[in-house]
């Protein structure tokens, strides 16, 4: 079998000029076997299991980067939802100590984020779940690497509005306690959260998973943008075909690295998440892909169709390339982490309402967007509830990562720096849903869940 010069060049230029990388290799670790009635022993077990596995992940990932000449941008850890393992140690002090233990284990091993400080509360809240939500403002503001999630709805359980109603206040407290409200960037609330998602901040190691699993997230907005630009005249069917072929190749690279890394670590290979994930680097923007389709600015009418086409093509290409597609496998359009999204908001092309519409056709949710700090907590809860209702009714994952920035008004700019980027503060509808949300309770599971 010979590989042609053109094929070698295509791969090399994807890496050298189009920002192709393996976006994340995330090791899912079960912490249930670490539990001990002695909290000191419990913490020691957690630190030991996380640190020893994280070190191996970092070492082996480096070796593979060298072998294939492809950067592995992030090495991360996801763990069993913490509220589950803390049921018998349910005090505020112990929760914070556990968060610090996880933060230290990640830091010592050179891991930038550890996900899973969260809970599955789609049907109801245990004492431990409530405690976890209660300590989140402290955990998110006092640790650097610990990421948190809550799953508050699913298409078989409905939406736990009582849990949602706790979040606006929690997020506002977190924002007050952390510089530039950055703590909020480490918290994601989901409906239909996948248990094998490798992407932060919402990654966790599901209760249905084995002891340790390796999950991979690919990247590729720059690569897709390049092929779209090279094919300006083709119709939608052809455009879809071109994207499919490209994503097939990207996913295969992810599958290869994932399989080899799992084999080197002697653990099972989990999934490849084929989400297109933008970064703050120029030319690595999903918004720019949509714009290369012929949309003047993302957010313009026509953008929903464009996102639908993009995502469907990405999924078809990815599904052909790997038998292990999982995780979120949507597209991320985080406002602060995508230069095209930032520009669209600043130019007035994109507002919250259109962003919400885009999430209905397959992006994963309202991600990394800032709102004024004086938005009432009920309104934050309503933003979350609306977004999750889209997921529950349409049988898909949706999520919200919202940052209410104290003292900032719509139109101002907040710089988070690094991977988290810069967020233009977005205007929020000033009318209230307070009395509706006050009803509380649970949105019943939709009729589409009755399939048995």
């Amino acid at each position, binding site marked *: 079998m*010979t590989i042609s*010069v*053109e094929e*070698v060049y295509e*791969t090399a230029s994807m890496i*050298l000029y189009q920002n192709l990388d393996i976006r994340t290799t995330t090791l899912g670790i079960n912490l249930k076997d670490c539990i001990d009635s002695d909290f000191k022993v419990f913490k020691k077990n957690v630190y030991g299991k996380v640190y020893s596995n994280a070190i191996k992940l970092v070492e082996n990932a480096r070796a593979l980067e060298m*072998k294939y*000449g492809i950067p592995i941008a992030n090495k991360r850890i996801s763990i069993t939802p913490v509220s589950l393992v803390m049921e018998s140690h349910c005090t505020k002090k112990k929760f914070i100590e556990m968060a610090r233990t996880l933060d230290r284990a990640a830091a010592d091993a050179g891991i930038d984020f550890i996900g899973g400080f969260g809970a599955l509360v789609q049907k109801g809240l245990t004492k431990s779940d409530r405690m976890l939500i209660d300590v989140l403002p402290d955990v998110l503001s006092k640790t650097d690497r610990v990421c948190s999630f809550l799953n508050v709805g699913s298409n078989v359980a409905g939406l736990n509005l009582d849990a949602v109603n706790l979040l606006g206040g929690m997020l506002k407290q977190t924002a007050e306690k952390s510089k530039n409200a950055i703590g909020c960037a480490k918290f994601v609330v989901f409906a239909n959260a996948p248990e094998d998602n490798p992407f932060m901040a919402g990654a966790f190691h599901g209760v249905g998973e084995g002891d340790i699993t390796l999950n991979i997230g690919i990247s590729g907005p720059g690569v897709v943008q390049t092929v779209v630009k090279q094919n300006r005249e083709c119709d939608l069917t052809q455009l879809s075909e071109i994207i499919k072929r490209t994503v097939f*190749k990207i996913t295969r690279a992810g599958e290869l690295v994932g399989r080899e890394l799992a084999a080197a670590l002697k653990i099972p290979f989990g999934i490849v998440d084929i989400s297109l994930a933008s970064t703050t680097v120029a030319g690595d923007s999903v918004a720019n892909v949509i714009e290369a389709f012929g949309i003047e600015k993302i957010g313009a009418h026509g953008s929903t169709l464009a996102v639908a086409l993009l995502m469907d093509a990405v999924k078809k290409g990815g599904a052909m390339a790997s038998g292990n597609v999982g995780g979120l496998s949507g597209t991320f359009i985080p406002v602060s982490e995508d230069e095209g999204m930032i520009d669209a908001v600043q130019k007035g092309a994109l507002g919250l309402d259109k962003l919400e519409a885009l999430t209905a056709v397959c992006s994963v949710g309202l991600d990394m967007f800032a709102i004024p700090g004086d938005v009432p907590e009920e309104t934050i809860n309503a933003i979350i509830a609306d977004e999750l209702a889209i997921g529950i009714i349409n049988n898909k994952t949706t999520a919200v990562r919202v940052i209410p920035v104290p003292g900032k008004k719509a139109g101002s700019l907040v710089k988070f720096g690094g991977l988290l980027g810069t967020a233009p503060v977005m205007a929020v509808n000033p009318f209230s849903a307070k009395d509706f949300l006050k009803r509380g309770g649970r949105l019943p599971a939709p009729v589409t869940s009755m399939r048995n």
Partner: protein
Amino acid sequence: MEKELLFITVIGEDKKGIVAKISNFLYKKDINIEDINQRIMGDGYFVMTMLVDIKKSTIPMEKITWELEKIGKSLELRVQLQHENIFKMMHRV
């Protein structure tokens, strides 16, 4: 003995001495060239690919990469070294 095949990709402007410099380095480190191709691409770039067997190499892959990068810098070219598996995975079903 089973081979360990990697691709060296050289991208940039065509100039004298590219093949000479790289093949001389490979010869010194006991790395065998299995195949060699070059082309001017549609976008005007000169691209050369070499399929090499590093099974008997006297230095590890990491060092080969560094040395090739050095040669690339001296010639103002991008040089990449990648195991052949990635190309097989991406370009063959």
